[in-house]
Structure formats: C-alpha cells, structure tokens
C-alpha cells in the first residue's frame, strides 16, 4: 500500500492521518461499509460505490478509516476490489452473524437436522470448488446444482456404506445414543425428496435442505441463480470464494484438527468418480454441475 501514498490527497499526505479525518470522510467510510453490507449490490452497477472503492484503494488514510468503521461494527474485511466490492463478513458474536437457530427452526431441537444443514453448506462449497486450485484461482467461477450436490454427497455416503459392509462392520447405531451414529448415515437415511400436497419441495428432504442453503447463499450475494435445471443451477461470485477460502474452510479445518482428525492427502485428486460397479441409483438430472445435456 505504501506506493499509493503519493496518490493520496495532498493534505492527507502532509498532515498526520488522524488530523485529516473530517466528519465527511467518516461519513464516506461508513457509506462504503454500508455498501458492503448489501452483498448483492455490484460495484459496476453503482457509480458512488465504485468511486468509494477507488478512493479506498488510492487513499490509505481513508482505507484505514473504512476498516476501522467495519471493525467497530463487528465486521471483518475480506477484500476491497472492483470485482468483489467491499467484501465484509460478520465476526463471531457480531449482530450481523447468522445463527443456526435463526436459519432453520428444527435445528435447535434435532442434532441430526443441525448437522444436515451444516453439511449442505459444506457440500455446496465442495461442489463449487472441487479442486484446491479452483478455490485459490481468483478468476474461477464454480457451478452447482441442487440435485448435483445431493447426488454427490449420497455418492460419498454410499462409498462409506460399502466400505463398512466390506469390513463386515455393523454400522447400525446403538439405540438411544443418537450422537454416536456415523455422520454419513444421517444424510443417507434422509429421503432425497418427497411429494407434498402443494407441489413444493419437501423442506426436510436432502434436496430441500440443499435448496435452502443455496437460496440463502444467493441472498448473501454468494451465488447467482442461472437456471431451473437439476433443481436449480447457480454460479459462484467472488465474495463466496473469498468467504470459503479465507473464513469457512480454515475455521472448519481447525475444528477438525481439534477433534484429532488430521486429513492427509498426497495431492492426488480426492473427488473421484464412482466406481464402475458402484450401482448408485442416481436420480434423474442429478447432472452434476458442469454436465450439459
């Protein structure tokens, strides 16, 4: 950022930054943060937003001021750029944070549902960014479909089920200890869809849960709906990539390590196609994200 100093306004460069802050600057900084709080707003569509973003990038004291405003509100600045805009996200315990209980009602009572909703979000991200390179590459745009996400999680569950069967393991959980049931069984057990009286998607089915997740992410400005095929198709935005890469991925990985699980991969691809004999009954249009026709 130091090379930008000469671009900043002369009075800001001359005087110490703190002295240069005027109420108008503070209002502009807060305004920029307010733009960031409207995640669906695209900088390219709003002249004032674009101007403020440029000022953030060219005027370091202003940038620091905007960062301070965001921090004070309980926000974390992920990136400020023309493509992502003022990408901010809620810090833990911030008033802006999303709580699972507010997200889906049954989750507080039922641990299984809570897990399913969380897993749906993780699976959407895994499907959107299948390779580590995709998550790292700023230009990458991922595509997900509702049925595709469900099919791919089912496929993973199915493989675990087969592996358990090969080893002669009895995976039926002991009664009255629901917390000890293997995670994959919860997803596999839940029906993929279901007929309802009013032809809407059954909310408790796995496709219903995935659909809720993608709809929520769309509201967060993380996905954009591109069509109705395969239960709904979506593409990712720059903000989603930042959110998953800088926040969610590392947080979940840290939690996993704390549980004593150290995933080791040797760089070979992990998201493999199902085996030939893997007679998983894929549903119609499970058409995974990139599948056309």
């Amino acid at each position, binding site marked *: 950022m130091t090379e930008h100093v000469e671009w900043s306004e002369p009075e800001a460069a001359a005087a110490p930054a703190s002295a240069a802050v005027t109420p108008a600057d503070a209002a502009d900084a807060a305004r920029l943060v307010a733009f960031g709080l409207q995640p669906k707003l695209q900088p390219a569509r709003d002249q004032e937003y674009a101007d403020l973003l440029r000022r953030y990038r060219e005027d370091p004291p202003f940038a620091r001021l905007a960062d301070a405003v965001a921090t004070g509100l309980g926000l974390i600045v992920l990136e400020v750029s023309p493509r992502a805009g003022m990408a901010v996200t809620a810090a833990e315990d*911030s008033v802006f944070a999303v709580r699972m209980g507010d997200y889906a009602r049954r989750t507080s009572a039922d641990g299984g549902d809570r897990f399913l909703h969380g897993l749906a979000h993780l699976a959407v991200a895994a499907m959107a960014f*299948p*390779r*580590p*390179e995709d998550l790292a590459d700023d230009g990458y745009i991922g595509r997900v479909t509702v049925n595709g996400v469900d099919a791919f999680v089912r496929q993973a569950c199915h493989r675990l089920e087969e592996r358990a069967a090969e080893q002669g393991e009895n995976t039926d959980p002991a009664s009255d200890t629901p917390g000890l049931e293997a995670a994959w069984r919860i997803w596999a057990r839940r*029906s993929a869809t*279901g007929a309802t009286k009013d032809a809407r998607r059954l909310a408790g089915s796995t496709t219903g849960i995935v659909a809720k997740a993608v709809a929520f992410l769309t509201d*967060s400005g993380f996905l954009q709906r591109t069509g109705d095929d395969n239960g709904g198709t979506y593409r990712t935005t720059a903000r989603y990539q930042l959110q998953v890469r800088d926040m969610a991925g590392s947080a979940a990985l840290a*939690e996993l390590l704390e549980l004593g699980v150290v995933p080791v991969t040797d760089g070979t691809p992990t998201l493999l196609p199902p085996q030939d004999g893997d007679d998983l009954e894929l549903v*119609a249009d499970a058409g995974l994200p990139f599948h056309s026709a």
Partner: protein
Amino acid sequence: MTSPASTDSVPPQLSAGPRPAPGPAADEGLARRLRALACTAPLHDLDARKANLAGEYSVYGMAEIALAAIDLVTLNMDFDTGADHDQVVARLIPRIAAQAPRRPAAEHERVARWVLENLINVGSVDRGFRAVYGVFGADGTYVRRDYDFKLVEEVPGPGGTVYLRTTDEAVNVLVGALDTDVTSAQIAAEVKLEVLIRRGRLADAQLAAEQARYRTVQYSETLRRALEATRRNVRAVDWLSAVPDMIAEALDHVADRYRHENAILTNIRKARDESEDPGHKRRAAELVDIVKDCIRRHTQLQSRLLEAGPLFRAEQDRQAFANPTSTSGTDLYGHLLAPLLPLPVERASRVTDAFFAHGTGLRTPVSVRVADLVEILLTPPVEREHLGAEMPEPDLIATPDDSRFSEEQLAAATELLDLPADAPRRLSGLLADARRQDPELPYLVALLAIHAASPPFGTAYRQGERKLLFAVDDGTDLVDPEFGGADLIVGTALLDAAGMAADRTEAA
C-alpha cells in the same frame, strides 16, 4: 441367551446337545436375519393397523396390496426416473377392486393411496422405517441397535417431479435380487431375446428386452460420471488407459447392438404382423417400442462418446495448462468433507457448525419500532398465492423514439397520396403540396412514391386490398430544389377484390 443360569429347568438332553457357537460370529448371522425380518414388518403392520382406519377396511388384504405395489414400482422404474405415483395407484386399483367389488371406487383409490403412503412412511421426517434389534458385542455386552431402512423412496425426477423407486432392501427381501455384470448381462440378454422371439415367447422376450435397455443405459451412466469427474478434475480420471478403453468398448458395443437390434426389430415386426392372437400382437407391438427405445439410447450414447475426446482436451487445457497459482486453497472435499462423514454425528456437527458460522456471510438484523410493531401485528396474514411467486417486474429501459417521421406526418402524407383512381399526379406537384404543409413532409412523400414504383402486388392480392398506390417513370426529369431523378407519375390502381377473393378460394 448363552447364560447357563437355568440349568435346573432345562431338560438335560437339550443342554447336552451341540449349541450354536455363542458370541459375535453367531450374532452376525442373527443380525442379518433380524434385519431381513424387519423389512417385512411394515407389511404386516398394514394389516394390523387397517382396523384403525375410519371405515370398515378389514375386507382388504393390505399386505397383498403392499407387495403388489412394490412389484409395480420395481417393474415400472425406468433407469433415469422411477415409477409415477399416480400410475402406480391406478394400476393397483383393479386388484383392490377385485378384493371388494361392491365398495365404491373412491374407497379403492383411498386404500391404494393409504398403502403407498405407508410404504413410503410419509409421516416420518426421514420417510423411512426403524427397527430395533439386540446383539452381543465382541466383548460380550448386549447392545440394542437401530436399523433404518426404506421400502419405497421418492426421488426427484425431471422438472421437479417426484418419482418412486424401490430400495435395495425391498428388492432383496421382497422381490428377489437381480445382480449381474454389465457386459455379460447385456450379451446374455440379447441372445435370450433372439431365442425367445424365434420361439414366439414374447412375454419373456419383453422382459429380456427391458433388461437389455437397462444395461445400455448403464453404459452411458458410467461415461457420464467419468466426464463429470473430468470436468471437475482431469486428474481424477484415468485418461491414459481406463477411459479410452471404456470409450472404445462402448463404441464397439454401440455398433454391435445397433446392428443386432435392427435385426431383432425386423423379426418382431414380422411376428407382430403375422400373429393371429391379439395378445401376442399387442406384446409384439410393445416389444417394437422397447427395441426402438433401445436404438434411440444407443444413438444417444454414441453422440456422447464422440463428445468425450474434445471435452477431455478442453478441460486439460483449462485445468492442467493454467498458470499455477501462488496461493493454495483448501481441498474442501478431501480435507474436510471426506474425513468428516465417518465421524460420529456429534463430533462431525462441530465441524459443520464451524463451517456454517463462517461460511454464511452476514445478515443485516431487522429492527422494528414499537409503533410499526403494533401495525405489523394487526395486519392480517397475506393469503398465499396459489398462482405461485409474483413475477419480478422486468427492468425495461424506454428506448428513445428515433423515428424520422411522426405519426401525424405519416397521416398527412397518406392523405396527400390518397389520389382518385382516375387522376394520377406528378411527383413534383405532390412534393410542392407537401412542402407547403411541412418542410419535412416532402421526404416522406418521396420515400412513399419510390416504394410505390415497385408496388407490393403479392401482399395486396393475398390481403384482398381494394386499391394500390403505384408510380411509373415516363422519362420526365424531376425539377426540385431538394430531390433529383425522375418525375414519377403517382396514381392509385383499383383492384378487383371480389375476383381476387374468388381466385384465392379456387387456388386453395
């Protein structure tokens, strides 16, 4: 059960005999049988619970209907969809009606739906069943376990519809398994089909043809999965040998089957046309449809096979030859999702919770003023639209009206050119008249006159116009401050509308 506590009451000859080996090995088999037994429980349960239904339903054999329903779903499920809910109900009704012919048809349908809904177990959130059984663990402790299973499950079909499929449990226990290798099963089915047709056993031939179609679709499914994985990650698929081999094999298969099925088609058509027996004829006709569908699917597979190579090369370019990025991302599937699934749900939830908390972004909290709150609470709830969600208002941009001439100018020009049939005029005179009205008008008049030089006879004829504007050049030069060229003679020709109409009807 291995406890020898009650030796006193047990007759000595029994305790002395060979007993099954106690412990986990014996219990393994027991658990398997208990699970198989559990799959039949929902069927017995139907008969037990029919007494609770409002009305006199004891006359119906619910377990029989349920088994018939499972058979119907199994036979009707297509590879890529499943059985249609309403269709299954419709096909069940004749059997139900036969059980109680005097009852109203509405009741029959109600029974069919009740049985089907209970097989799906609509009431539970998982839409499945749970049975509890007990086994001895390796350390000799007695553990009760939950066995979750489904008999008929609902799967999403194209366009958001819901289809039924029978589960493996239902097929294994209640129908009888069908487990065969793709390639050999395909060949066996073809041979069987030929033989059956030759012998005129069309009922069996139909079954064989349906199996053959199933195998064909499996080929394209295998290919589709490989291509999807390629799109995600080229290196996840063995493009050096496995996939090319598979493609070559599938192409051979398509060529082979295509020839084969055309031959079969000819045979069945002959059987269909020569057969006397109407049942036989109908079967053969159905068989023709099935084989036609097989051929259609082969063609589909072939076109997909041809797309495979270019797709691989394109993905290879995109993925492998892209500039390596300096930062590395997390392998979300390999590092997070895959290790997470085998964990107990209690522990796995902590990871998904962490992902959820950090991955959902932010929501701006809604704050309500007390004054608004009262109003909100008093507002009657909005009735849910039965027409679906409201269409978003399209963001239309008004395009500026860039027409050269206004409507009024057009009207003036048309009026000027509305000449009597017997009095054509020179263009120069018309232009002078137009210029007196409006300095822009001569341009429009000139334009219309030039168009009239090639009058749209065809259109006028088809539409039955009564008159037509025409313009002829007789060699006179136009003298005008703004325009040059020929001083056209502009006039109106009267058309014989009635005659043309008569012509048209004749031609038609």
